[in-house]
């Protein structure tokens, strides 16, 4: 019988002793085992008590294996090897066998030996002094702060840092490329991370210089893509820098010749990339960012470029974000946008142009919203992105389509028919490779060139769709087969139509639009030097039985560029394409 007194200590049961004896090839009787067990317990207690002495003198609160081993050594008992790790060793039970063991992970020696990323050494032990209390009263800094620079940089690292920043922010584009590439793949720059993050946080001070902003964003991209870097809490700072580029009415935006739109697009792309690749780090930020985007969007005082940023930002965060924030807010926002777009006065021309941008961005966003929603309906299971909201009941797809159609009229319908996933590709889901569901583009797909958006003052230039189309090139499957001539047929044949039959969408009844155009032209601005551009344009169906809003037909579809590109990267991200 075990009395309460004995219960105060851990006990070794006699079975364990017998087991150990057996493993050593000795047969023990019960009496002997019991006696041994008791003695073992006592010796353990004794050793533990003496080991606490070493802990006290090492001025620690935590008893370590090392302390225990010292106690054993000084009482001429062999020390225990193999438990010297600083971290706590997980002690696990196996339920079935009532067996307890220390979890010992296998170490792949080959992998370890051939690893190319050499772990960085421990930082040097050092002493730092700070005045904690002045005259025994309060103090300058918060009480007993610890200096932030715990690590000092080695000379080499410092040199590297200087070279890299100089190259990235300097004039030579080739050098910049090399620097960015190295930043992306270097395994030994962990110590520099805070410094780079600090440099990047300088976006706020160069908001007048698009070029610099662009370079800083590229730096973000390289850091995010570096597989050896653990961004940790620095990711917040990076995200806030990126958000700054997306949302703020940058000083550079004052000049209409500056193409800040591309910057915003790129920043949004980056944001989506960060969320895609570092989801674990930023999951806490998702909601916060959503809120700030919503705030900007619902603030009519903000300039249109900020609104544009909010829309592309939402778009970057995934269709669920669009559904959650942009979609419910659209009716209210529409009134403002409409007012801008309806004003034909000369003084309003610039604002109106901006308005078109926002319009286009919204259109692209809702387009994908509808597509993805249709896809998610046809493919039961967890949605592709976004966090599940339990308290939020989504609007059914047909109703959503109806409402959106009432805003955009046939521009939406046209986009559907001309969009990259036209032909009901996403809707005929079962045959579709699953990778189309990947919303944010993979790192390889990230365009690293900037694109100048075409001006809307372009002259109309009708050209056959194919000649500028990239779709002959190997591209994401959704882009694979497409030409303008086959479109009407595809439309009628596409199984997607079934989904939309309940909608007020008229085309099946009224017949498809017969033209599609590309808007092309030469871009203004000194920097672009008259680069050619093209935009797809399709005339609104004039015979629409359900007349959309009055303005809807006035608006061209924005965002399709017909100019040949080196590669098509991001099928869904139609607002940003490399030229």
């Amino acid at each position: 019988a075990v009395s309460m007194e004995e219960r105060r200590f851990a006990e070794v049961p006699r079975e364990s002793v017998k087991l150990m004896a057996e493993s050593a090839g000795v047969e023990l009787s019960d009496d002997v085992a019991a006696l041994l067990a008791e003695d073992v317990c006592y010796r353990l207690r004794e050793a533990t008590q003496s080991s606490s002495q070493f802990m006290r003198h090492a001025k620690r609160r935590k008893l370590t294996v090392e302390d225990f081993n010292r106690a054993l050594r000084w009482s001429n008992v062999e020390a225990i090897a193999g438990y010297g790790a600083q971290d706590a060793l997980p002690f696990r039970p196996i339920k079935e066998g009532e067996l307890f063991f220390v979890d010992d992970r296998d170490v792949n020696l080959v992998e370890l030996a051939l690893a190319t990323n050499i772990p960085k050494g421990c930082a040097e032990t050092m002493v730092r002094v700070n005045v904690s209390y002045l005259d025994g009263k309060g103090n300058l800094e918060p009480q007993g702060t610890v200096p932030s620079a715990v690590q000092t940089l080695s000379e080499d690292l410092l040199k590297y840092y200087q070279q890299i920043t100089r190259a990235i922010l300097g004039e030579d584009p080739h050098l910049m490329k090399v620097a960015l590439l190295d930043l992306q793949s270097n395994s030994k720059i962990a110590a520099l991370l805070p410094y780079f993050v600090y440099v990047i946080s300088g976006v706020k001070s160069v908001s007048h210089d698009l070029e610099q902003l662009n370079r800083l964003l590229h730096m973000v991209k390289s850091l995010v893509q570096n597989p050896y870097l653990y961004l940790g809490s620095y990711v917040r700072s990076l995200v806030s820098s990126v958000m700054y580029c997306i949302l703020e009415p940058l000083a550079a935006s004052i000049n209409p010749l500056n193409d800040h739109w591309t910057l915003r697009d790129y920043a949004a792309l980056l944001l989506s990339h960060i969320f895609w690749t570092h989801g674990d780090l930023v999951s806490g930020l998702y909601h916060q960012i959503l809120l700030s985007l919503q705030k900007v969007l619902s603030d009519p005082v903000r300039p249109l470029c900020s609104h544009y940023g909010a829309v592309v930002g939402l778009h970057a965060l995934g269709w669920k974000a669009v559904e959650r924030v942009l979609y419910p807010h659209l009716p209210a926002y529409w009134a403002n946008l409409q007012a801008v777009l309806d004003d034909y006065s000369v003084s309003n021309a610039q604002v109106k142009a901006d308005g078109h941008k926002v319009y286009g961005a919204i259109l692209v966003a809702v387009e994908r919203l509808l597509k993805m929603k249709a896809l998610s309906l046809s493919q039961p299971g967890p949605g592709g992105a976004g966090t599940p909201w339990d308290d939020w009941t989504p609007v059914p797809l047909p109703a959503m389509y109806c409402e959106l159609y009432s805003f955009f009229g046939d521009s939406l319908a046209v986009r559907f028919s001309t969009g990259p996933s036209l032909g009901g590709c996403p809707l005929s889901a079962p045959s579709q490779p699953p990778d189309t569901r990947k919303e944010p583009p993979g790192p390889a797909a990230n365009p690293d060139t900037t694109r100048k958006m075409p001006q809307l003052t372009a002259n109309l230039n009708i050209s056959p769709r194919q000649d500028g189309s990239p779709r002959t090139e190997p591209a994401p499957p959704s882009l694979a087969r497409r030409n303008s001539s086959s479109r009407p047929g595809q439309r009628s044949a596409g199984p997607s139509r079934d989904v939309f039959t309940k909608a007020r969408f008229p085309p099946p009844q009224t017949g498809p639009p017969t033209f599609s155009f590309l808007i092309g032209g030469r871009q203004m601005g000194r920097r672009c030097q008259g680069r050619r551009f093209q935009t797809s344009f399709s005339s609104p169906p004039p015979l629409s039985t359900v007349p959309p809003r009055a303005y809807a037909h006035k608006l061209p579809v924005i965002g399709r560029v017909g100019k040949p590109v080196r590669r098509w990267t991001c099928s869904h991200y139609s607002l940003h394409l490399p030229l």
Partner: protein
Amino acid sequence: MAAVQDGQLNMEVEKDIKTEITNDGSGNINANSSSPGSTSSGGKSKSPAGSGEDQQTLLAVLQFLKRNKLTESVDILRREAGLSADADDSPVSDSAGAGSGGVPNVSADGGDANSLLSRVSIATPFAPPATAPPKVVAASGGEDQPDVNVVLSAYSQQGDPVLYPLYYNGLKKFIESVLDCHRAELSQVFYPLFVHMYLELVYNNHENEAKQFFEKFSGDQECYYEEDLRILSSMSKKEHMKGNETMLDFRTSKFVLRISRDSYQLLKRHLQERQNNQIWNIIQEHLYIDIFDGMPRSKSQIDAMSGSLAGEGKRDANKAKVFYGLLKEPEIEVPLDDEDEEAENEEGKPKKKKPKKDSMGSKSKKQDPNAPQQTRIPLPELKDSDKLDKIMNMKEATKKIRLGPDNLPSICFYSFLNAYQGLTAVDFTDDSSLIAGGFADSTVRVWSVTPKKLRRVKSAADLSNIDKESDDVLERIMDEKTASESKILYGHSGPVYGISFSPDRNYLLSSSEDGTVRLWSLQTFTCLVGYKGHNYPVWDTQFSPYGYYFISGGHDRVARLWATDHYQPLRMFAGHLADITCTLFHPNSNYVATGSADRTIRLWDVLTGNCVRILTGHKGPIHSLAFSPNGKFMASGATDGRVLLWDVGHGLMVGELKGHTDTIYALKFSRDGEILASGSMDNTVKLWDTLKAFDDVELDDFTAATGHIHLPENSQELLLGTYMTKSTPVIHLHFTRRNLLLAAGAYNP
């Protein structure tokens, strides 16, 4: 940690000591036996009024020595103890002064003559049972018995185990029924009685009875014995008692109780009436009852003083006179003109400075009546550089900030960052220019706190090329190439637990788990000497404020006094019942204080090697000590989170500072002693108003005579401030010469 098994090492010790003794025939020996363990007579010679039993012990020792043909030792012991007719009446000759020879002074405190076996002798199978009580020797019938058995055999007398609870209960009932004023005093008997009864039961193999006994009565014991009770309760077999330190401590030393005569009579009468021999025997054999005349003490008075492993210190133990005053400062001609110029430059008040300086000078010229003679122990002569430093010190002192409750010091915190190795000890130089850390990875690291970098002296070949006549030769000998902010000293093979700069900043001492104390040169940053003597971890070491001497103490319970140029200790201070956890020199260098895991502080006389104070009251191992700058007071901090203040001259506790919630690892008085800073594991620094604390104490003749102080409950009034660090335990504190408080610790994120 059982030292028992470590036979080989102990044999070495013994050999060492034996050779010392045989080599030194000159008679200047204060040591008294062949074994460091037989410590019984060091103090004995001073107070030959020992009981008959002690005499017999001595005789037994003599017999043993004779048997082993250690005739010289016999002679010495005879002479020391005054046993033979031709005994020397003045055995302690001053010529045995420190520094003059390498003779260890094995000594015990005068009052502790009955500590029959110190740890070392227990630990040594080769050591003779020299000090066992004669009757036990007779009983066990031979000298070749292992010591532990000899010690334990005292428990062989046994009563009926079933009656033990009855006896104990009877006494309990009696004590509960006596008058209130006696109850508190008599209750002190419970704990030692409980322990000895339990041990007797265990020793006689009444395991179940012992357990029952423990369960029944362990709850009655004072909470501060919890730790010991836990160790006791884990011991339920006779075999366990061998090698268990706590048990041996109990058995080998008498538990000291202070009881007023009235209370004692009451107890005695009761026990005799009841014919309760079992208890009476235990009291007779294992307890030392220090009877005093006068009022019985109150519960709070008793609680304040108890808590140590072996009860309170005997009153006799604290009777010796302690010269706590400071030594006269040597007269150094201060170049006043320079000083004035400088003062003028800095503060523009040159005129006020002068008279101040003079008054200071005259003050130091007067001989303090409480100070020891200037030459009581030989001190190293001042070098030119020392004089320069003293001048610097005085200059700095004039700019010292006067601290007080309204003028608290600024605190600078030195955080050790990236100290993955585990920071175990820190020290600052007196002028705060260097900081050193001892680490668990066996390294010692030194940092320069000033912009002046640390440089090594050039190699011998390079040195020969230097023009030795040049004025800046001291500058030229330094190798500029080696300049760096910090230097690492490798040499130890275990964690470095203690570290201490020499006052002249040329040397650094470090003590380690590997059992050595090392002396490092801060000119060459190499190890100069490894002092071997402690065979177990050395927990602490400390330089004398005058340099040259240092003290070390560790797991072997013996504190050793060394001189830097002797590879063997000059004195060995034995008497503590458990590890020596911290060591400290008195400001006048004539005394050393040691704090121990037996929860007592002892003050030792460097000259005679005697224990002159035993201070009890802490309820946990003592980890920090500090003397006030005037040498009159001492502060001590322990794992119980309390700081106790002591009057060194009277050997009295004069204050208790409560507030910390964890072990206090650092204590320091400000330069003028108005403020005490305490740093703790609980990540705080606290400042205490010591001026008020010492003023509030009323010392009338009675309290001074009996030591029954009534402590004021004024911790909260004395606490001037609590300062948090950020996850950094404070392990060292230092006041700069201008009274800026420096604290140090390792940042543990």
